[in-house]
């Protein structure tokens, strides 16, 4: 086989012709000629040199013919073929077989067109050339070289296309040389296939595609080569610099090297032609135009050289440099092609025709595309100066918004490379939660000083300047959240299981090309990828928080204990605590109170709560200031730690404590009023016997019911309009929350609403002061009434005792009383009666103060901007009792109404 392989292609071709036509060598001369010409031409150099592609095509073809079994058989055979490795060009032979493939069911139609052509062509060529006899020399099958060149072109077009010149030279710069060389025949016969027959018949080939290696190119029928042209041109420029010399110079300048005549002019920062050199103006102009390419090249080169050594420039910057290098490489490839052509010309001397030499003009045309590309690169380099990371990617992306498809493709390619590291960061971040960003290029920043308890809130932040412009703010936030969730799970929840099923393919399939596609196709894949990761991670995090850490249960516990939702428990606690809390604050001991708390828990429905929650419930004593009673400093507390503390932060807890204190105070007022009412009811019958007291008692009753009404309305407002409404809102939001941030936000809104509605924020300080004053009045009233009852009951008891004594003595047969005793009794009764007006006036004073405070409170409520507070004022003064008393309430109400109507 090896020996056989030495046979030249021509011999093989000839035997093939004989074999197929079934005739002897001499008979197939025409066919052979034709075959040689077709094979020797650069006919269709465009096919893919990819074995896999070809085999796929074959399978498809077989399937099209409904021969599935054969397709499978073919795959088997193909595999066998691959394992043997005898053939070097498997794709080639497979391709040949494929193109010879015929569907057994239908006759091929494609061959027909060739047939007619062939039939036409044969007779004509018969007389033109005795080709057959010159066969061995003339046919130079330089196919491998050419196909290699074609392959290079194909690949370079794929990546950058800067060496588009290669394609020009392969297909010939233009149609003119062939038309000239083939002579009148070609011109006279337009029916010939342009592709097939546009070839020069002779060995004069489109230059550089066919460097004739044979000893003597033996064209017999071709027009003689045309040295005269060349000579004439050379003669013309003998005084000046020849164009060829300039071309050589220019090629150096293209690489940024000074030529003989064209030199870098540093002060003006441009390439200049030595003005002393004699040269015609057009040449001078053309070469300065060409020299621009060198300048652009230098610019790009300088940037990459300076940056690629700078380690702090970061991965994104490095990949930018790499992409620039890649482009420059393509450019160098073009230059090397030009150089080799120049070399070739030198070797062949004047032999090659005028049309195929390198001229400045030709260079101008060929370097047109590369120049535009270099220009874009130079502009990019300018624009990207001093940027790095995501900022750099944004800058590149901004250049992609151009209408020129070539430029867009170029920038897209660079963008793909540049954004690749960013995409890597991003995947590492959203799938593993790891931040490997040594050079601070990614748009998520981490603060290493933050401890784990503030991880969710403070540790990670967005670096706004580094968000590439092709990533929206919304996406960036989601990305931040995903990674944050993962880190939260790892570091705070100590949950190491990977959240959900991360598609493993997505991690591997992020080549630079994908990166560009992903980022440009923002509506589609990228968005869905982020969304998927977002939902997956957030859902997992919420599940963990709810299942392992009972977030929702804790939320409810807050509501029940700190916001007094568990009524029976609170009531019982207050009952138990009352004697303790009445004492001075300094005498309270936390352990006593804790014991009472436990008793209250055990006695009420609270005992059915989970022990985890009850364990966290605790008593807390606020800072004691002089004169405080236990009521002022007592507070319930709820301990939070671990992941839960992310939702219930320290600020949240302090808010809860404030609200608790307010509610506790209001609750206490209710409790006091209940006591007042109880004692009124109990004592009413007893004191009936003292008609002189009825006026005072009546006053007491009136004031007490006024207060009861007020406190009831307040309680109604707090419980239903504030707590229940906000709680319902919070609960709905929490149920629908997609990520932890939603829950935190909803919770904060909830607390804020409660704080402001409970008059605890700074805007309603005056209202709160009035309310506190009302509460104080209630306490004072309690004291006054208690004193009243105490003295009344004392008096009553004395009287009963007196009567008892009188009766006992009468039964014993003595005088009921002595005059002295009676006088004493009467004096005492009189004294008691004298105290009654004092009590009356004290009560009146109290009533007066109380009503003044309430009126002021109402006035403030009316003028407040919050609608629910205005409604509260209507409810408090439903029968316009206070309005009738206080002139200030009337105009303000009118004013409010007027303002309202004007607003509407």
């Amino acid at each position: 086989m090896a020996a056989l392989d030495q046979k030249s292609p021509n011999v093989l071709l000839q035997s093939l012709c004989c074999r197929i036509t079934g005739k002897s060598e001499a008979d197939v001369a025409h066919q052979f000629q034709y075959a040689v010409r077709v094979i020797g031409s650069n006919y269709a150099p465009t096919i893919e040199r990819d074995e896999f592609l070809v085999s796929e095509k074959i399978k498809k073809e077989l399937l099209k013919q409904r021969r599935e079994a054969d397709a499978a058989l073919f795959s088997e055979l193909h595999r066998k073929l691959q394992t043997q490795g005898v053939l070097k060009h498997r794709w080639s032979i497979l391709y040949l077989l494929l193109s010879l493939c015929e569907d057994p069911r239908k006759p091929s139609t494609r061959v027909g067109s060739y047939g007619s052509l062939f039939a036409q062509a044969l007779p004509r060529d018969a007389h033109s050339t005795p080709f057959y006899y010159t066969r061995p020399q003339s046919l130079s099958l330089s196919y491998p070289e050419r196909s290699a060149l074609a392959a290079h072109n194909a690949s370079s077009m794929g990546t950058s296309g800067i060496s588009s010149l290669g394609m020009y030279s392969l297909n010939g710069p233009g149609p003119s040389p062939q038309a000239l060389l083939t002579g009148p025949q070609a011109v006279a016969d337009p029916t010939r296939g342009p592709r097939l027959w546009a070839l020069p018949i002779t060995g004069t080939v489109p230059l550089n595609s066919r460097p004739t290696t044979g000893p003597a190119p033996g064209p017999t029928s071709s027009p003689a080569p045309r040295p005269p042209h060349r000579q004439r041109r050379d003669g013309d420029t003998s005084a000046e610099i020849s164009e060829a010399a300039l071309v050589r110079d220019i090629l150096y300048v293209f690489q940024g090297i000074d030529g003989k005549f064209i030199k870098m002019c540093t002060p003006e920062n441009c390439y200049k032609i030595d003005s002393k050199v004699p040269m015609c103006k057009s040449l001078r102009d053309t070469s300065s135009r060409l020299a621009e390419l060198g300048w652009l090249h230098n610019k790009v080169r300088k940037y990459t050289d300076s940056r690629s050594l700078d380690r702090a420039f970061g991965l994104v910057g490095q990949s930018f440099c790499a992409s620039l290098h890649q482009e420059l490489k393509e450019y160098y490839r073009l230059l090397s092609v030009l150089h080799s052509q120049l070399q070739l010309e030198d070797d062949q001397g004047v032999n090659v025709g005028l049309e195929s030499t390198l001229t400045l003009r030709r260079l101008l045309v060929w370097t047109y595309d590369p120049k535009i590309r270099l220009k874009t690169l130079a502009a990019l380099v300018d624009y990207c100066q001093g940027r790095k990371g995501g900022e750099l990617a944004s800058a590149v992306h901004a250049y992609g918004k151009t209408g020129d498809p070539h430029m867009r493709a170029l920038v897209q390619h660079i963008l793909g490379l540049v954004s690749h590291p960013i995409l890597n960061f991003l995947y590492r971040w959203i799938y593993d939660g790891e931040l490997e960003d040594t050079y601070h290029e990614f748009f998520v920043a981490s603060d290493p000083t933050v401890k784990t308890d503030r991880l969710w809130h403070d540790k990670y932040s967005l670096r706004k300047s580094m968000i590439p412009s092709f990533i929206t703010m919304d996406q960036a936030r989601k990305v931040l959240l995903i990674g944050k969730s993962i880190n939260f799970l790892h570091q705070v929840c100590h949950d190491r299981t990977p959240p959900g099923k991360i598609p493993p393919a997505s991690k591997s399939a992020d080549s630079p090309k994908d990166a560009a596609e992903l980022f440009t196709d923002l509506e589609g894949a990228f968005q869905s990828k982020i969304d998927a990761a977002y939902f997956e991670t957030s859902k997992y995090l919420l599940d963990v928080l709810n299942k392992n850490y009972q977030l929702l249960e804790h939320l409810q516990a807050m509501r029940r204990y700190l916001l007094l939702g568990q009524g029976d428990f609170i009531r019982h606690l207050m009952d138990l605590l009352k004697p303790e809390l009445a004492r001075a604050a300094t005498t309270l001991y936390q352990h006593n109170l804790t014991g009472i708390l436990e008793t209250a828990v055990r006695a009420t429905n609270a005992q059915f709560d989970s022990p985890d929650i009850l364990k966290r419930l605790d008593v807390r004593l606020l800072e004691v200031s002089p004169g405080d009673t236990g009521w002022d400093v007592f507070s319930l507390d709820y301990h939070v730690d671990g992941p839960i503390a992310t939702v219930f932060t320290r600020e949240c807890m302090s808010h809860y404590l404030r609200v608790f204190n307010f509610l506790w105070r209001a609750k206490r007022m209710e409790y006091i009023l209940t006591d007042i009412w109880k004692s009124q009811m109990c004592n009413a019958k007893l004191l009936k016997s003292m008609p002189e007291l009825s006026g005072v008692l009546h006053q007491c009753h009136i004031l007490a019911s006024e207060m009861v009404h007020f406190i009831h309305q307040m309680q109604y407002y707090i419980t239903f309009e504030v707590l229940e409404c906000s709680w319902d809102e919070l609960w709905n939001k929490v149920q629908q929350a997609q990520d932890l941030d939603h829950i935190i936000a909803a919770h904060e809104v909830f607390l804020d609403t409660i704080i402001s509605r409970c008059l605890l924020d700074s805007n309603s300080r005056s209202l709160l002061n009035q309310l506190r004053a009302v509460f104080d009045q209630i306490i004072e009233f309690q004291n006054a009434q208690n004193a009243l009852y105490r003295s009344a009951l004392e008096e009553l008891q004395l009287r009963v005792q007196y009567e008892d004594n009188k009766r006992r003595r009468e039964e014993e047969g003595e005088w009921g009383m002595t005059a002295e005793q009676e006088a004493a009794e009467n004096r005492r009764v009189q004294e008691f009666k004298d105290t009654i007006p004092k009590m009356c006036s004290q009560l009146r004073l109290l009533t007066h103060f109380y009503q003044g405070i309430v009126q002021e409170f109402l006035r403030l409520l009316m003028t407040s901007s919050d609608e629910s507070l205005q409604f509260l004022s209507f409810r408090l003064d439903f029968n316009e009792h206070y309005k009738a008393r206080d002139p200030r309430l009337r105009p303000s109400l009118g004013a409010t109404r007027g303002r309202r109507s004007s607003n509407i």
Partner: protein
Amino acid sequence: MASAANTNMNAVRETMDVLLEISRLLNTGLDMESLSICVRLCEQGINPEALSSVIKELRRATDTLKASDNSTSQG
């Protein structure tokens, strides 16, 4: 040395068998000899598309030639 050459020959033969089978599957109409010529050409880097068009053309020419022969012999 000889055995190496021998195994090489075997491999070549096997390869040719496989190729012939594929050729048969695809219904190319090439016999063993023309196939081996084609393989050699391809291995030398010939453009397979050009080669295939040549083969088709040659067949077409042969067919027309035969047809004309037939018609002349009949006529």
